């Protein structure tokens, strides 16, 4: 990572101007990513950011690395396929709460289970920003900001950390867009972690949820050592307010796929296959 010597966070910006609203929390995540990249000396050519669709999912174009801006909800699938095919790359999947927990919920669960060695950043603003402010799975039950759900969604919010844990994610952290330095530190750690690392970021949508500026007063640091017992973590994730930030849970387990045996020559394998048919 010789590149690192010279690299500053701004060197990781692509120069494309974000379409985000001024004050959007996603700017912080972008800044945190370039900071973490600079801190780790991430090789631009060997890094891929993969996303779905949403305001948050626009991020890859703003970073000077390889990127894949896919379809809504499927970023994690793309990222896993890429990493399994190209284990040499650093792969970061990212997207919004709608992208990741609503339409993409199934891939989220199964990615946690599968434990491919990638990092997933969910930029959670409890709303569908891109489509102009409908409730997302993480919206408060009584949030009446959308005409689609005029009395609020009325449904228990999705608990990302609890779901990740129950699904088997071995590394779970939470950041807040008001504290990009913390996000950058967590992200650096996430990338270093061998396995699926889930970084849940509370990233405010200033346009459709202006009340989220209050988050500043609510977030707190998780000051303990990360939990490693699933039962303790579950008790925490099912009871907390969802505003504790920091590395919350860490319990490494075998990544998938397991290390492969050295590849054989494809021609040889094809010849063997043919010989079975010729038998």
């Amino acid at each position: 990572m010789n590149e690192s010597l010279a690299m500053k966070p701004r060197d990781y910006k692509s120069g494309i101007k974000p379409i985000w609203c001024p004050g959007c929390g996603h700017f912080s995540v972008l800044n945190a990513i370039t900071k973490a990249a600079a801190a780790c000396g991430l090789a631009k050519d060997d890094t891929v950011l993969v996303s779905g669709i949403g305001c948050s999912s626009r991020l890859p174009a703003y970073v000077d690395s390889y990127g894949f801006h896919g379809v809504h909800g499927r970023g994690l699938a793309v990222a896993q396929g890429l990493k399994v095919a190209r284990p040499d790359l650093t792969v970061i999947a990212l997207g919004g709460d709608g992208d990741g927990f609503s339409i993409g919920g199934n891939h989220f669960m199964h990615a946690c289970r599968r434990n491919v060695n990638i990092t997933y950043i969910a930029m959670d603003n409890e709303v569908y920003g891109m489509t102009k402010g409908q409730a997302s799975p993480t919206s408060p039950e009584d949030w009446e900001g959308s005409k689609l759900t005029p009395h609020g969604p009325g449904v228990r919010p999705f608990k990302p950390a609890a779901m990740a844990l129950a699904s088997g994610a071995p590394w779970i952290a939470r950041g807040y867009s008001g504290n990009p330095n913390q996000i950058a530190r967590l992200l650096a750690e996430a990338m270093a972690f061998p396995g699926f690392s889930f970084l849940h970021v509370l990233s405010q949508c200033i346009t459709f949820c202006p009340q989220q500026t209050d988050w500043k007063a609510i977030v707190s640091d998780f000051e303990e050592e990360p939990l490693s017992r699933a039962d303790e973590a579950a008790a925490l994730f099912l009871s907390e307010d969802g505003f504790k930030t920091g590395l919350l849970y860490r319990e490494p387990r075998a990544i998938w796929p397991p290390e492969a045996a050295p590849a054989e020559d494809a021609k040889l394998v094809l010849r063997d296959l043919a010989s079975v048919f010729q038998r």
Partner: protein
Amino acid sequence: MLQDEFSLAITGSGGAGVMSVGELLLQAWAEEGGRGLLRKAFGPQIRGGEAAALLKLTSHQRYTASSTHNLLLAFDWENFSRFGDEIRLQPDSIVLCENPADMPDSLQVLQPQIISLPFKELAKNAHPEGRLNMLALGVLGALLGIPVATLKSLATHKLADKVEDYRDAAEACIDAGVCAAPDLAPALPAAKAEKGWYISGNQAAAYGALVGGVRFVAAYPITPASDVLEYLAAPLERMGGALVQAEDELAAINMALGAAYGGVPAFTATSGPGLALMSESIGLAVASETPVTILDVMRGGPSTGIPTKSEQSDLNIALYGLHGDAPHLVLAPLSISDCVFTCAWAVQLAQRLQTAAIVLSDQFLGQSTAIIDPPRELPVIESSSRGSRGDHYLRYAITDDGVSAQSIPGDHDQRFTADGLEHNERGTPSAGALDHQQQLDKRARKLTALDPGDDWGETHGRGSVALICFGSAAAAVTTAYDPLTAAGIDCRVIALRLLAPLPLEQLMEALDGCTRIIVIEQNHGAQLLHYLRGYLEFSGSFHSVATPGPVPLSPATIVTAVSEVLDDE
């Protein structure tokens, strides 16, 4: 006496080992340098129920299902009867059975040549562990003139992981069967000189995908495509590739796109319902110009339909199932053997054109086993144009042939973000009219500029009535050519392997001199007919022979239908 084809059916209960007899007989026939086909038929039960091995020994490779059988070996009549009229005989057929008295009336009236054999007793006498099916193998092997040593060696090989007693029993039963075989010499087809490959269409497709360069597969199981995946897992692993069983088809296609974006040729296999689920992301492959090959082993539709039977009714969705203007490749193998070439070719075209290729196989091709000539070698086409990039890399550069240089992660300083949003040449999202028009033009041009060479399809004859078909129907239509010609119908056969882009130039040339087109296909809506009518400039008349599954297309029905169409005029 030689004849072209000899069909035999073996029926029994699911547990009776009927399929093993079929497989071993066909393998033995292959050892003799023969050609032939094995279809398997089951009842609706998941397991158990009735089973039939439907074999056809041939002197050619135009494999079609048999409408009638020259020989029937029925372990019992109850299970035979459950097939309704799926298994037919003809008046000179041979029937081997235990109790001729119980033979159903539908067979009695044909007055076949009945040979009664006490299967159970013979097997029991041969060995205490003796099984009916090995006895049947002996009987049938002898009738077909296969050396007993061949039968035994194949059977013991198949039973390699069983206890020795089991193998002894098999050998004893085979011997007993050979002894008990009636003294008949049915007219059989001649054997070819070269020993063929014993392979199913799904195996051939898997093999072809690997030959084409596939090193990553992600898929979700579905009948009748799952066995493609089962064949792929082990060789991929040996090659240093990977197979991921995804949580659903949405994940499968997107995992494939991820791998392909990473430069690893990627593939998935599915059937109609899965293809439908994948369609959004196949559109992403088209827009982001990420190569991927999707094999659709078609089954009866619509919806869950008839999962275990064949139909060619996914042509529409394959051609037109993506939202927006999303030009992509659609191909269809013309035979079991051609599954190798067509899959390999599809993978290479997808890689070269950086787009999605959908390959339309079907349950008949995929799950029938056949003896095929060793497949032709595939010239490996260089995949797309990496390396020709300038300093200011434009991933989606406008080019004459619509193909742009494609970098992959790891390539130095050629970074870009692949995007399904409309974009400019660099890949930056753009809603501009010019960018949209240029990228749409470029993506369409990739296909229109493609010269498919001679592999776009196959033709047969030069008559004035063109019988056009695609994929799996090719064998039945080609087989119908001779009887049609004999009946004075001046026809030719055009079988399409490449369906999109439609090879218009080649097709018009192949149609030269034709006054009528009859489109023959195995679906209800005449999907190919309407597709061709929508694109072909043809001054003659169009006619349709469209019959849905589940009964396989038969040359005889085609002969009748074509004659009727022409009489109607």
